[in-house]
């Protein structure tokens, strides 16, 4: 008996197949069979998407699931359920677990945990260097064989240019993207927020925009030297966006992502000393925020990724300078994109869908991000006009660190279908 689900009568937007029309989506046994009007639905489960947008399953290429090692903050199960509640069908998890995902063993552990417990598809990202220590290369080939889809030392940028060059050479030979958290640690040392007027006013140490710019510049030169597929994580500065744009125009396979908080907020929005506004890269000045939005509109920034970074409440209830960096973001990403990018006319709906589907797919090559026949049955259904209020205390995530608690949004996820089964619906 085949498992059949029909998503009925929504506006189907699938940029990969150039589709934008009201239609049904038919999924049989976890695969898309067709998109069209009045598809047969006898013996099928039906989801009525009238008035909603139906898109290929959204991909978040940058999350932290904290397992193994920090299960008090998040697990693969809880994080993946938060992803489903945010409309994501696939997430890629960064390797800064304990132990660091720098080996086949840890990669396999994550793949196995995800297989038995995750609500959405989970793809591990392996470390670039052993222990993300920045010196000795990790077992990149073995991790790829075990299921790693990219390499990164996220949070601990590779400071040594020679090591980064070697890593890029390996990444190229294994055909893996290499993702860098761009931060010159000497320039940013001790910083707690963006270096600018608010940091000086509040007596907090600054993380200059230059610390990001310097690293992006160095890496783009190395990417040119090695030919690696190089990706800038959570881009946040005007210069960094301009440099990636320049590199792309010159034919380099360079890409970048940004986060919902970097296109939605700036240091001018911060509540002083509230650690829910503390993350890396920091919320930049309004000028940098505007440059990020322009980079999205211009196509330089090809993906939105949440950098979902759960931290236990006790870790965030401290003096600002002692609090760890990062906020959770899976459940608010679609709403922020709709409200901050689509509603003000910065981008259209189809472009927004690209940023969550073909954009990250182009970097990670998961074989997803489209509703073409034969594709995995991953579908994100969202509304552009539903009014809802984010209550983080209802979140499936184990952590509560978000600046968006209590915000009322217009538009948000309605249902998440993973491999042909409804993983979440509003």
């Amino acid at each position: 008996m085949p498992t059949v689900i029909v998503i009925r009568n929504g506006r189907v937007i699938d940029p990969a197949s150039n589709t934008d029309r009201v239609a049904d989506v038919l999924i049989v046994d976890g695969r898309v069979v067709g998109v069209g009007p009045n598809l047969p639905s006898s013996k099928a489960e039906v989801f009525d998407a009238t008035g909603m947008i139906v898109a290929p399953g959204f991909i978040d290429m940058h999350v932290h699931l904290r397992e193994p090692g920090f299960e008090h903050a998040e697990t693969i199960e809880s994080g993946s359920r938060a992803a489903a509640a945010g409309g994501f069908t696939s997430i890629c998890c960064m390797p800064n677990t304990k132990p660091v995902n720098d080996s086949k063993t840890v990669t396999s552990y994550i793949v196995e945990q995800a297989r038995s417990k995750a609500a959405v598809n989970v793809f591990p990202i392996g470390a670039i260097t052993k222990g993300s220590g920045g010196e000795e290369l990790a077992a990149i080939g073995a991790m790829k064989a075990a299921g790693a889809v990219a390499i990164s030392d996220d949070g601990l940028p590779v400071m040594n240019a020679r090591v980064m060059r070697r890593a890029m050479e390996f990444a190229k030979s294994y055909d893996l993207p290499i993702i860098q958290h761009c931060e010159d640690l000497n320039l940013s040392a001790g910083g707690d927020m963006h270096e600018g007027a608010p940091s000086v006013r509040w007596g907090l140490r600054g993380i200059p925009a230059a610390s990001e710019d310097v690293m992006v510049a160095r890496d783009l030169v190395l990417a040119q030297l090695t030919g690696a597929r190089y990706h800038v994580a959570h881009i946040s500065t005007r210069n960094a966006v301009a440099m990636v744009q320049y590199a792309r125009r010159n034919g380099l396979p360079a890409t970048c992502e940004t986060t919902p908080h970097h296109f939605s907020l700036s240091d001018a929005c911060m509540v002083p000393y509230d650690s829910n506004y503390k993350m890396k890269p920091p919320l930049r000045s309004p000028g940098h925020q505007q440059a990020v939005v322009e980079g999205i509109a211009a196509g330089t920034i090809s993906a939105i990724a949440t950098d979902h970074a759960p931290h236990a409440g006790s870790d965030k209830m401290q003096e600002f300078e002692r609090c760890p960096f990062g906020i959770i973001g899976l459940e608010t990403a679609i709403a922020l994109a709709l409200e901050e990018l689509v509603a003000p006319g910065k981008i259209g709906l189809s472009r927004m869908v690209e940023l969550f589907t073909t954009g990250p797919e182009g970097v990670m090559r998961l074989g997803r991000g489209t509703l073409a026949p034969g594709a995995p049955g991953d579908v994100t259904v969202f509304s552009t006009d539903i009014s809802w209020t984010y209550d983080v205390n209802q979140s499936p995530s184990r952590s509560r660190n978000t600046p968006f608690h209590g915000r009322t949004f217009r538009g948000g996820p309605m249902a998440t279908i993973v491999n042909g089964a409804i993983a979440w619906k509003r």
Partner: protein
Amino acid sequence: MPAGLLGIEELDRAEIEAILARAKDFQPVQSQTLKKLDQLRGKMIVNLFYEASTRTRTSFEIAAKRLGADAISITASGSSVSKGESLVDTLNTLAAMRPDAIVMRHAASGAPHFLARHLPTPIINAGDGTHEHPTQALLDARTILDRRSRLEGLKVAIIGDIAHSRVARSNVHLLSKFGVEIVLCGPASLLPVELAQLAPGVRLTTDICDAIREADVIMMLRVQLERQHEAAFPASEYFQFYGLRLEHMDLAKPDAIVMHPGPINRGRELSSEVADFSRSVILHQVENGIAVRMAVLEKVIG
């Protein structure tokens, strides 16, 4: 949020004037034979100092006692902090003992602001990291006003490690609200350009002579080596370029005064001759500290 005193920035001019006027009332008390009043009899103040301090802690303790309140002082080294208790747990524990106010100094900027969001007890900020030190700015203003009829129109030079100075920030906020012309001066690495946006009327210079010229008040800051995380300036030549010497005083107004929040480092930010010279009001600042803190305690818990 209970009414404490977290900073000068959020006070308005009338509130500042009220504290300064009340502090003037308390000035004669300091030289009376019997110094004890009873405005705060039965009240309890906890001084919680997470950073070394002699003058501020003593000054708050004496101010509380001269108003008839009980005061206890806790320093971080002898407390549960060394047992790994978090700041918010320590403060909740103290708050459960129902003091009327907690006077707090902490090395982290914003620590009292963070706590004020979670505690029922009023908090008086006795210095938070490199952010604010409100009672210092109030006592500095009191000291200036003991020698000048008004703050408006004065030129005040603040010289030294501005980047790491909570004294400078609080003074800038206070003086700016009264239309003072403020010149901040120090080595470029300790003088971020964004300081010019801190408040209206602020100008920056790296030239000490430019800063002092025609000044009514010269505030020297301690070189805070403990807050500098790198060698921001060659220490060996600091005094040569940013140390205040007697010959500099010829550039200032003839009756210009020299101030310093203490503790002073003779031969580093000012010469010994300047520290002891007739228009140095450093000890008068210390004396005013008690009167001003009495006024603040009375306002917060009286």
